[in-house]
């Protein structure tokens, strides 16, 4: 097992290098310019724009820029944002808590919805409950978050006037009122993301339980006279959830930057909105840092998922 993990980590290095080369070249070759606003401003002489380009190293050849980025990244220097002239890691750390809070809550909500509904509808397949659950889940993952997000705003903010639709990172209240205000503004983004993820996960849980529930050993358990609750809890769900755990582990990196659209709609100042703003402003160091961290997380959690799978299911061997 340690040998297996070591081998995977060693393989990950060239993979990440490759990813960074691709990311860097795509960003460098993409049209756009961090100084777009300057171009139409009559008061800014072209020399200033050209000097800034040179100062930010945009005029150097691509391979040189890549090597410079890589060496400073290895030394722990992530560069600075062209827009705010702030160090990239500070910028990301500033956004991280909000992202973790909103996306983390959304995933908890998704699990709370998906596990009971998925299991119940698989235990009684094609019952009325199952029919309704599958239909709702089908709608849930068919509707994109930008649509449900706007619908939520229309209903809960504009028609009913219950919830604010602009997420504010500092709230002018203290104590429990601060908590209530934070909870209120988080309801819509969390619900939109959580229900979308929950719908996908419900179908997955259902399929997985359905597969196990028909197996011979479950019938054997029933034949032995074990109670239904025990059969489902001990024999079915435990085995059915092995692939589900893997799926969840693979989804964890998206908590880091997976909610670009939802964050944009509700103005949640998370990493997703930082990424999209940086892309629109051609703020290469920020885009590079976020996408690279994201790819590191994806590679890492792939490995973790594999290891967990082997640990949960003794039939898998790593040799």
């Amino acid at each position, binding site marked *: 097992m340690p040998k297996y993990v070591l081998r995977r980590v060693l393989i990950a290095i060239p993979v990440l290098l490759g990813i960074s080369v691709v990311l860097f070249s795509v960003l460098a070759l993409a*049209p756009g310019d961090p100084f777009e606003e300057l171009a139409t401003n009559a*008061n800014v002489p072209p020399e200033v724009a050209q000097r800034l380009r040179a100062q930010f190293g945009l005029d150097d050849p691509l391979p040189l820029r890549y090597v410079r980025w890589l060496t400073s990244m290895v030394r722990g220097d992530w560069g600075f944002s062209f827009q705010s002239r702030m160090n990239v890691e500070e910028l990301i750390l500033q956004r991280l808590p909000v992202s973790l809070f909103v996306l983390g809550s959304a995933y908890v909500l998704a699990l709370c919805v998906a596990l009971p509904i998925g299991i119940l509808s698989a235990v009684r397949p094609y019952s009325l409950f199952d029919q309704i659950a599958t239909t709702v889940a089908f709608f849930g993952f068919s509707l994109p978050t930008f649509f449900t997000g706007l619908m939520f705003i229309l209903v809960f903010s504009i028609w009913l006037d219950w919830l604010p639709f602009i997420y504010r990172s500092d709230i002018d209240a203290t104590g429990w009122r601060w908590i209530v205000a934070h909870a209120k503004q988080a309801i819509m983004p969390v619900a939109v993301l959580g229900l979308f993820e929950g719908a996908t996960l419900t179908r997955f849980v259902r399929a997985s339980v359905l597969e196990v529930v028909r197996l011979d050993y479950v019938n054997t358990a029933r034949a032995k006279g074990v109670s239904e609750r025990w059969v489902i809890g001990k024999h079915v769900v435990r085995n059915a959830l092995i692939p589900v755990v893997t799926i969840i582990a693979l989804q964890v990196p998206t908590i880091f930057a997976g909610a670009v659209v939802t964050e944009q709609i509700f103005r949640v100042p998370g990493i997703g909105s930082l990424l999209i703003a940086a892309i629109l402003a051609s703020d290469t160091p920020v885009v590079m840092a976020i996408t690279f961290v994201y790819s590191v997380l994806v590679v890492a959690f792939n490995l973790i998922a594999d290891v967990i799978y082997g640990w949960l299911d003794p039939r898998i061997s790593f040799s």
Partner: protein
Amino acid sequence: MDEDRIRELIDDVKGGRLSRRSFIETMVGLGLTAPLATQMLTTVGVAHAQTRPSPGLNPTKRGGGGRLRLLWWQAPTLLNGHFATGTKDQDAARPVYEPLCAFDPDGNFVPILAGEAPTLQNGGLTKDGKTVTWRLKKGVQWHDGKPFTADDVIFTWEWVADPATSSLNITAYQDIDRIDRVDDHTAKVTFKEPRAFWYDAFFGVRGYILPKHLFKDYRGNNARNAPQNLKPIGTGPYKIVDFKPGDSARFEINPSYHVPNRPFFDQVELKGGGDATSAARAVLQTGEFDFAWNMQVEWDVLKRLAEGGKGIISQSTTGNIEHIQVNQTDPWTEVEGERSSIKTKHPLFQDVAFRQAIALLVDRATVAEELYGPGGQATGNFLNAPDKFRSKNTKWEFSIDKANKLLDEAGYKRGSDGFRLGKDGKRIKLVFQTSTNSLRQKNQAIIKQACAKAGLDMELKSVVASVFFSSDPANPDTYSHFYADLQMFNTTMVSPDPQFFMNQFLSGQAAQKSNKWGFRNPTRYRNPEYDKLWSAAEAEFDPVKRAAMFVRMNDIVVNDVVVVPENWRRRSTAVSKQLHGMDLSGWDSDLWHLAYWYREA
């Protein structure tokens, strides 16, 4: 002008219907001296326009207004106005930093950190146009308690004018030869050359004064590292509490602000990000925010949102102009590695009749009515504001018949399919480019339709804004390459003086390969008469004569159809119905008057 008329004008000034400045300029235009004109006003009791009458509320104490919520749909990314890449950054820095003078909605000077605006009368300006003496307000403190003095003014100039700093405001400061410190609160600015447009440095969004004691260790290349770029310490009505780049900024009241009993609000929150339409919604429909900046939303949508009843849409005058540029060079022939080379002439547009036909085919009335609504106005002028610079000599019309007649007479015959042929017998096809934006694409379609009726075939091209407006020399689709026959975009007029605004038709500014397409004139129009006028205006101190020069420049480019001006844009903002005192100015930041904003219960 007889005596009665002059008395009428004086009454207008008294009643506030005519600005003091324009009265004085009219009088000067009649041959009177400016001091005499001022004298005429003083005798009837019109005070020297040095401080603006504060409208509405006259509070007896500072603060007590609670929290003001501002929404900018672009998020500020740094809080140093001299590094600002857009109005969002200039605005977010304004509660903290202040200039010596601000610009009111008519482009008049309002002293902020100056004790009074320099004039010839008060000895602040000299006749040779080379020096400006600033008398600074006394008793002003930086937020950290240090006194504000002439040293800060001198330092701000040195800091911004240093090319290594790469400040975007360098043009305002680099022509200053030296600044002498007369005493703690007097600074004498000397320009290298006589300068008519002296009210650039230390004014408005380009004039934020930096504290010397905090920035002196962060000069040149090191300027980027100044912690005050993100956590500014200024003299303004609000202090920074917290700033998250790309998201929001929070300010609290400055208890020792230099204007008594101001400001009204205790805290200010500026949230950024999202899109213009939902920002309008948050003010007009749900009332979550008090003020939303720059409502670039189709008029129809905005009107419907305003029915929400929580707020109104306020318009302020700008000099911004949506216009169509006519390429003077040939975009389809490559000469020495570049298209649209100044060595070529446009095969069709070198014929003035053809250019005039194009101008006749732009249906400005429909565009104004259907696309921009009250957010703009159809115009025949490129230079529209301030009032004194707007030409009254131009007219515009939309007439397909007249365009057809012009083209027929000029010998552009129609081919078998009804479309016209060029002199070489080939079918004419014009390429018309602009940035991707739903209003602009609708606008393009309106023009294409009219051109088709006149037998001109047109291909429409739209380029993503981040490419179209980029300064990337390697990308042929930018507006400054202008590899098309016609192009349309909005040019913003940043200051109430047209000197820089009008440099985009100078021969020396032609954008081409040798300057990496970084220069300001994409039409590559070259006219020695225009160049001469522009240089003369730079050194002309008689405001009436100078205004006449700019009117003439406008008439040249409009009559020569180098541009077809289309829509004179206004700046729309969404404002809560309870919020007052904003006095929004198109020449300065939306927050220039923030200390005077108040909310009615």
